[in-house]
Structure formats: C-alpha cells, structure tokens
C-alpha cells in the first residue's frame, strides 16, 4: 500500500506537475523566445483583472490558461469521411508513450527506507527509488516505447482522410524509423561505459570527478555520443530543423484536420516529448541528479556557506538539480528552432543514414576499443576531452559565412 501511494505521489510530482507543467510553460516560452529572436514582444496581454490600473499579466504566462480555455471551448470537428475511432485515439498515443518513458527516469537519488516511519514500510524494502518504475532493462524499454510514438502521427494522418495529412504521417514515419537506428546506436557507448541498462544505476555511475575537477558525466565520457543522441532525438520530436512532417509552408502536417483540444493534445504532446527528451538527455549525459562540489553522498553544501545534512537534503536538492538541468536542455531545444533553418527532405534522410549512422558506429567501435584497453575509463576520458576540444576548435576557427552587408534603414 505504501509503495502504491509512493508511486502515485511520484507520478503526481514528476509526471503531472513537473513534466506536463513544464510542457505548458514551454508553449509560452517558445512564443516569447521566437518574439525575442525576431525583435517582437510576443504574447503579453492575457489578463483576468487589473492591479492599480495595470493589467496583471505575469509576463504573459496567463496566455497558457487563455490558450487552454480557448481550445476547450472550440468545436471539435471530425471530417465526414474520417475513420472515427482511429481519428479520436491518435492524439492520445504520443501522450501515452511520453508518460510511460517518464516512469523509467530517476529524478532524484534513492532514499533509505529508514527516513519513513517503520510501520509504513513493507517487509524487505530497503530503498525507496525516486523513480516510478525501477526496471532492470530500463534503457531498452525507453527505446522500445520511443519507437511507438510514431503511431500517433501515422494513425492521425491516415485517419483524417486528407492527402496532406497522410503525407505528413508518412514523412513522420519515415523520419522516425530512420533516426531510431542512430538513436539506439548512440546509446551503446554509454551502455558499455557504465555497464548497465538500468537508468538509475547509469546515473549512480556518473558520480566522481575526472582530472579532479570535471564531473564524470556522460557528456565528458561520450561527447560524440551525446551530440549524435541530441540530434537524433531532436529529429524524433519532429521539431525544426527536422519539421518535415509538419512543414507549415508546404503540407501543414499530420494534424491538419484536427481542431479544438484534439489539436491541443497533439501540440502539448509535442512539448511533452521535448521535456521527455530533456529528462532523458539529463539522465544519460548530464549526470541526472548528480552535481559534484554541491551534492555529496549524504550532505549538501554550497561552497561551505550553507550545509544541510541527511538523505532528505540530498533527495530534495538532487531532484531540484535534475529539474533545472532538464529545463536547461529544453530551452536549448527551443533555441535551436530559432537558430537553424530547416532541412530539405532529402537532406534529412542523408543526414540520418549517411552521417549519423556511420558516426554512431565509429563511436561504438572506438569506445569499445578504449574500454577494452583500459577498463577504468581514464584513456576514454582523455580521448573524449580531446574530442570536446576539437568541437570547440571547429566552432571557433571553423569556416563561417562572410558578413552580410547590412540593409540601410
């Protein structure tokens, strides 16, 4: 009974409040960020009442509520020749897969059961995981569930009985199938380095320091894997620059016939996917809830100025750190959309099959060789730091476009 209630509480906190809440905030953030990138103001006006003659807008955050209300009050239209049943269930599929993936992600360090009153705890339970499902084959399940997400777009596109929607569904399917291969292969390096498929123990293995100061996160052991994973996962979320399935300027997308909250579910589901991707990237490559110099094994200390001891302290601050990191990855994703132009369709396919896939394979072989040479991972980390420096060098000294002649005002 205790475990059931605990799982329910974890779901309410991590699934409903954090993930869906963050997804809702991201809808606002995306609009504000696009406005900022394009020198506009963006949504700032929705308000219910005024304080001192000025509308109480909360930086435009109330637009989330206003959008939600407007979606709910619109009429859901089902096209006459649409497949009624499949048309209705399609928006729910993406949500289901996203929420199931969240269940496997550890959002905080595990608590010893002695924190709780002994009478609550069932016999034989010693640790309470801050993770809804502590499953041994965690990362495999994440990949398996992730491959189901495409059904939403495919079914929605087909059931709408609209050629543009069908094209969107087909593009989504082709793109997702292509990038899944690279997505799975980029994670093999992480699996080999940490020797586990359980997400909680992958996070546990990312403790400690490299060279005495650098956190031993996946990003610093598998930099190429991290970059490839981020690209492939962005392609899976179908966002710009990979927004072929919903190119507004050409085919509008697989949700073309959807209206009202049915469309809202598709849209919010896409932002939920961003949150899931952020949480997954944090877990695998950013050390999850770990933060060296700040969170120790059973105490939290901010540069010695402030200390807080005990497992509860570690759990609370670990969860907070996880949420902040996830938010950071999500905002990186949003910024990508307003930084990069979109690909052409053949470029998407070529990038997936001819660039990401070979690079992922090379990454696997090099990583395997280095781990075989030195199982303590120290040679691997030297090589990885070299790769990171190479990335930095390419960004700083790489080819760039000649400066454009500014238009006169």
């Amino acid at each position, binding site marked *: 009974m205790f475990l059931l209630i605990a799982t329910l509480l974890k779901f309410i906190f991590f699934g409903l409040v954090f993930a869906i809440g963050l997804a809702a905030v991201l809808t606002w953030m995306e609009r504000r960020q696009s406005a900022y990138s394009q020198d506009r103001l963006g949504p700032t006006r929705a308000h219910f009442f005024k304080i001192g003659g000025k509308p109480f807008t909360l930086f435009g955050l109330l637009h989330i509520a206003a959008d939600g209300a407007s979606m709910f009050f619109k009429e859901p239209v089902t096209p006459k020749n649409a497949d009624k049943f*499949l048309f209705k269930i399609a928006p729910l599929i993406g949500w289901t897969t996203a929420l199931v993936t969240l269940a496997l992600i550890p959002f905080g360090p595990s608590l010893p059961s002695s924190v709780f009153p002994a009478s609550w705890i069932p016999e034989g339970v010693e640790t309470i995981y801050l993770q809804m499902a502590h499953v041994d084959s965690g990362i495999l399940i994440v990949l*398996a569930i992730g491959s189901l997400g495409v059904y939403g777009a495919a079914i929605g596109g087909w059931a709408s009985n609209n050629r543009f929607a069908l094209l969107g569904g087909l593009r989504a399917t082709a793109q997702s199938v292509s990038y899944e291969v690279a997505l799975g292969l980029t994670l093999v390096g992480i699996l080999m380095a940490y020797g586990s498929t359980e997400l909680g123990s992958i996070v546990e293995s990312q403790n400690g320091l490299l060279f005495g100061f650098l956190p031993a996160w996946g990003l610093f052991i598998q930099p190429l894997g991290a970059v490839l994973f981020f690209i492939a996962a962005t392609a899976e979320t179908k966002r710009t620059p990979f927004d072929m399935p919903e190119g507004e300027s050409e085919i509008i997308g697989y949700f073309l016939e959807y209206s009202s909250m049915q469309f809202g579910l598709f849209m919010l589901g896409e932002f939920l996917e961003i949150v899931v991707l952020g949480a997954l990237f944090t877990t695998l490559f950013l050390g999850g809830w770990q933060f060296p110099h700040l969170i120790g094994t059973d105490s939290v200390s901010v540069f010695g100025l402030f200390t807080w001891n005990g497992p509860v302290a570690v759990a609370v601050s670990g969860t907070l750190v996880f949420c902040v990191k996830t938010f950071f990855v999500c905002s990186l994703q949003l910024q990508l959309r307003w930084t990069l132009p979109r690909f052409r369709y*053949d470029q998407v396919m070529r990038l997936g099959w001819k660039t990401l896939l070979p690079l992922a394979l090379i990454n696997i072989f090099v990583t395997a060789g280095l781990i075989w040479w030195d199982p303590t991972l120290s040679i691997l980390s030297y090589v990885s730091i070299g790769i990171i420096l190479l990335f930095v060098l390419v960004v700083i000294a790489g080819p760039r476009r000649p400066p454009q002649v500014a238009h006169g005002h």
Partner: protein
Amino acid sequence: MLEQVSPSFLLFVPIALFTVAGACGVAFSRNIVYAAFSLLACFVGMVGLFAFLSADFLAVVQLMVYVGGILVLILFAIMLTNKISEVRRSNPSSNIVMGGVLMIVLITALLGVVFGFPWTVGAPQPFAATTETIGRAFLGSYLLPFEVAGLLLLAALLAAVVVARKEMTPAEQDGKGGTP
C-alpha cells in the same frame, strides 16, 4: 477447480484474451488497416505474456522489433498502397474451404499437444532480471550462432534491396543521376 484460481491466473486470462482477440481481428477484419492495428493489439498482448512469464528482456525486444519496427513498416506499406480508398474490400477472404481444412488439422494437432503432453509446473520463482544473462549468453557461449544469424539478416537485407530496386537504363541514369 475454484481453488486453482490464483491471482496470476486472473492476470493471465485478460492478457491471453486480448492477444487472441487481436489475432482474430487480423484474420477477420475486412479493412486492411484495421487488420494491421489488430496485429498491433496481438503483439502488445504477446509483450504482456512475455512479461507475465518473467521474460522481461523478451518482452522489451518484442516491443522494439515487432511493434516499433516491423509493424510500422507494414503500416507504411499499407498507407502507400494505391487502392486504399476502397477500404471496404481491402482485405478479402479467399480459399475458405482449404483454410477450414487446414484450421481443423492444425487445431487438432495443437490441442493434442496441449492435452497430451505431461506439463510440469514448477514453483513460481521470484522475478529476476534476465537482460544480463541473455547478453552474456549471446556474446559468450552462443557467439558463433549469433554472428551467423547477423550475417544471414544482412544478406537478406541486401537481397531485398537488390530485388526491390528498379534497374535503371544508362539513359535514365544520365538523365536523373543524383538524389531523387
């Protein structure tokens, strides 16, 4: 009979019924898209059966390979079929007599095995993770069969590309060489 009804039996029956219902849907649906989705239900039911039998790795692989891979490709193929507008007759039944004979023979054989074989029921084991064991077996004692199976699949893949690819005449190649 009633004292044999255990919680696991109550769990098993809905999973099995779901699987069988999916399989029936594949066989009896007139609409080929619905047949594909019934296949989805059937595969998901099998995932449940594997999980029920504590084969967590097999359940995940079933989900990843069949539901996430093969069925997506089947759906892709169906959606690209030309005559999809005629949904009513997209999955016609034919050869009912031969099929019926085959069904009777098959069911007799299967039921014979089910009731004739002395099944031994072991004591239920506590749930143990199987991923690591299977991984070690694949890359340890069964390395050669594993690699040979991989080569076989690669050969099949290449053969499928050769069969599916349209041969281009030299003139066509001159005309539109490059990306489609």
